């Protein structure tokens, strides 16, 4: 169906694809796996005409095609669903689906005809969605269905899906997989880009493994396993499970009582939440993204206005509900934010400057009677963090922008660990981070907990929260709806709490 032959693509000095050969057989589900930056998305974006390859050719149904724009790709029957949905939030489902391929004449858009066609496709592939709903009011799962419909509406025979399950709940993933199987039955071909090995094994027929811009393995799914795939992806043996000893917990470090957060819009994103985090334990919070986790963490880190908060936040015995971020940091609270670009780093600043954020006004960073930054001290701190957390490239003068997501994350984690926190607030610690680095970050988090720090962990990765946490709370629509023991609870059980709320 689709064949990439000797595709090479450079972005500046970076070789993103190096003579990549991928063969996708018709009527199969083909997985492309690899770490971030391995070149999987680049290769598929080339197939979809989003990028132009420097060398190599694309074959569709055995014939060479010059695919320079998405327009060309659509014309030969290739559709793509991107990791970040390509939908116009303020428009309706129908408008998004027909955009660029509108029915009717040039002067009048025939929405009636579009409706009929959309309903027919939703029936055929069991993709229920209301054509008149506005995108921003839909859940991510529904938005994904719109993306699939968009491709099907354009008569795509081959669908490329870039990390399609990253935003779904466990139940939604199951449903999504049955949709993919239905598509295969109807004769469609599916390419799924992912780095989740369990999913590869669950859904695909064949696998192509990429590393550092090259294809390093072509396998039949039936004939492989997670350990082999991980080894191919990373290039060495990887420990897939978190190893930890039982927690030795002390007194409560953080206690939250009846905390509610009011948004700018006046709605409550966190509703009457109470819990404690004890010294020496990792308390996990699981939930579908957008259920108040972000606001809860920002409230605890002191990033919201006190007027938005009601209830009480205490650290040890001090009420800090109305205190700002600086005082909270001085009390030993460290924060690893979910969005490292927005909250975690100044991308244009170099690593040395980024490594002192939060302590930039204190001794020993500020010397000479509190007036000047001490460059020597800054560099020493930066080098300690870079070496201690294996940040690469190990050059404190590089701008943070130049690092990969995983290395940016290691820098932030190193910086926050460096202040010897009593309480660590950490959100999505391994989002967009490679398997090798995930293993490293997990080990560091467990190490910090073993040294007596209280850790509050929010993650959208269920496997991550269940394997790291000593206790696990489930959040749904801003409320804590249950606590489970992560050692015994099943993924299905937790998933049900996450979506239903009870």
């Amino acid at each position, binding site marked *: 169906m689709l064949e990439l032959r000797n595709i090479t693509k450079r972005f500046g000095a970076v070789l993103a694809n190096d003579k990549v050969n991928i063969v996708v057989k018709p009527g199969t589900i083909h997985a492309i796996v690899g770490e971030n930056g391995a070149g999987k998305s680049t290769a598929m974006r080339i197939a979809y005409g*989003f990028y132009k390859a420097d060398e190599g050719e694309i074959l569709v149904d055995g014939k060479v095609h010059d695919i320079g724009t*998405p327009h060309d790709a659509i014309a030969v029957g290739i559709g793509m669903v991107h990791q970040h949905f*390509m939908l116009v939030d*303020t428009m309706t489902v129908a408008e*998004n689906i*027909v955009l660029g*391929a509108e029915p009717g004449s040039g002067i*009048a858009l025939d929405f009636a005809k579009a409706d009929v066609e959309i309903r027919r496709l939703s029936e055929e592939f069991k993709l229920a969605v209301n054509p008149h709903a506005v995108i921003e009011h839909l859940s991510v799962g529904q938005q994904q269905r719109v993306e699939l419909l*968009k491709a099907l509406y*354009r008569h795509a025979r081959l669908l490329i899906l870039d990390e399609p399950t990253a935003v779904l709940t466990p139940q939604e993933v199951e449903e999504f997989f049955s949709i993919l199987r239905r598509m295969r039955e109807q004769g469609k071909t599916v390419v799924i880009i992912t780095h989740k090995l369990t999913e590869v094994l669950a859904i695909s027929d064949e696998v192509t493994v990429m590393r550092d811009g090259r294809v390093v393995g072509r396998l039949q799914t039936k004939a492989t396993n997670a350990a082999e795939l991980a080894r191919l992806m990373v290039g060495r043996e990887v420990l897939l499970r978190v190893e930890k000893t039982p927690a030795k917990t002390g007194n409560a470090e953080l206690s939250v009582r009846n905390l509610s957060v009011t948004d700018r819009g006046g709605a409550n994103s966190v509703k009457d939440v109470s819990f404690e985090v004890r010294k020496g334990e990792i308390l996990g919070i699981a939930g579908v993204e957008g259920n108040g986790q972000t606001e809860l963490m920002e409230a605890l880190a002191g990033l919201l206005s006190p007027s938005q908060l009601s209830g009480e936040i205490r650290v040890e015995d001090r009420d800090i509900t109305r205190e700002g971020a600086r005082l909270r940091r001085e009390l030993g609270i460290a924060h690893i934010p979910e969005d490292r670009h927005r909250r975690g780093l100044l991308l244009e600043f170099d690593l040395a400057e980024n490594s002192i954020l939060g302590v930039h006004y204190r001794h020993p960073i500020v010397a000479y009677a509190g007036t000047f930054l001490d460059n020597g001290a800054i560099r020493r701190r930066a080098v300690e963090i870079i070496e201690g957390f294996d940040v690469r490239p190990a050059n404190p003068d590089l701008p943070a922008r130049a690092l990969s997501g995983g290395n940016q994350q290691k820098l932030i984690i190193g910086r926050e660990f460096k202040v010897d926190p009593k309480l660590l607030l950490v959100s999505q610690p391994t989002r967009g981070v490679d398997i090798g680095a995930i293993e490293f970050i997990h080990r560091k988090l467990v190490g910090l907990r073993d040294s007596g720090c209280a850790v509050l962990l929010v993650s959208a990765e269920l496997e991550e929260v269940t394997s790291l946490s000593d206790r696990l709370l489930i959040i749904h629509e801003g409320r804590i709806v249950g606590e489970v023991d992560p050692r015994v609870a099943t993924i299905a059980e937790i998933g049900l709490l996450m979506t239903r709320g009870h």
Partner: protein
Amino acid sequence: MTEIFSIALIWSTIRLSTPLILAALGGMFSERSGVINIALEGMMLAGAFAAASVTHAVGNPFVGVLAGMAAGLVIALIHAVACINYKADQVVTGTAINILMIGMPAFLSGAFFLSSGSTPQIPKENLIALTPMAIAFVLILITLATWYALYKTPFGLRLRSVGENPEAADAAGVRVARMRYVGVLLSGVLAGVAGAYISIGQSSLFTRNMTSGRGFIALAALIFGKWRPVQTMLACLLFGLTEAVTIQMQGVVKLPSGEDIPVQFIHMVPYLLTIIVLAGFIGSSRPPKAIGIPYQKER
């Protein structure tokens, strides 16, 4: 007070709103495609000057209006090339165009008419006689046409998508740069007509900087009207009404001491209203999401 609120006020409101509506609807095409058009003022000045000069030279006001449209188009083309091809900052480019268009007519009128910024008076028989009814009719027609184009045609769907999320539009096979070009050029044409109306509709010659900020008021109306055609037209009518009232107020409304209010103060009213409206309503008005951001494909 009855002297102010009369049927004449309605006609006057329509007359004064006309250039605002034309320019604001033009601005809508540009901004809905994602390109900020602060250059409306400059495009109007270009249209006003070209219309007056050509009407004077040819003797035919219809040719003059066409010339106004063409002038607006040329200025819009400069804006489009800078903002879309060269990804220049749209506010800076627009400001540069506005400044250029204050000087350019003055320079050209010096060359053509040996004057310092004005064109010669055009005789009455060479102007289009416009009745308020006819104008009102045309305005409603243009507003409805804009609404239809924006919401009921493939063109409008693509234009809006490009202004909201150009990546999504691109992925759906819409040519982003082309749509933005069309949006900006349309704004130039409409602003050109607006300018022509000011010089050869409301007046009979071009005078230096004669739009006096109406391009910006049109922009304010566009924001106040939430980038929607009918609301924007209504916002323009509000600004037009304010201007009409201030004209009628001159010499009529007096201070308690019996003296006239200085005319300069009365002239401030429409601009003050603009500031108040923008300060008060801008929060509730949601601009196209990708406005002001050049579209870059490979990152």
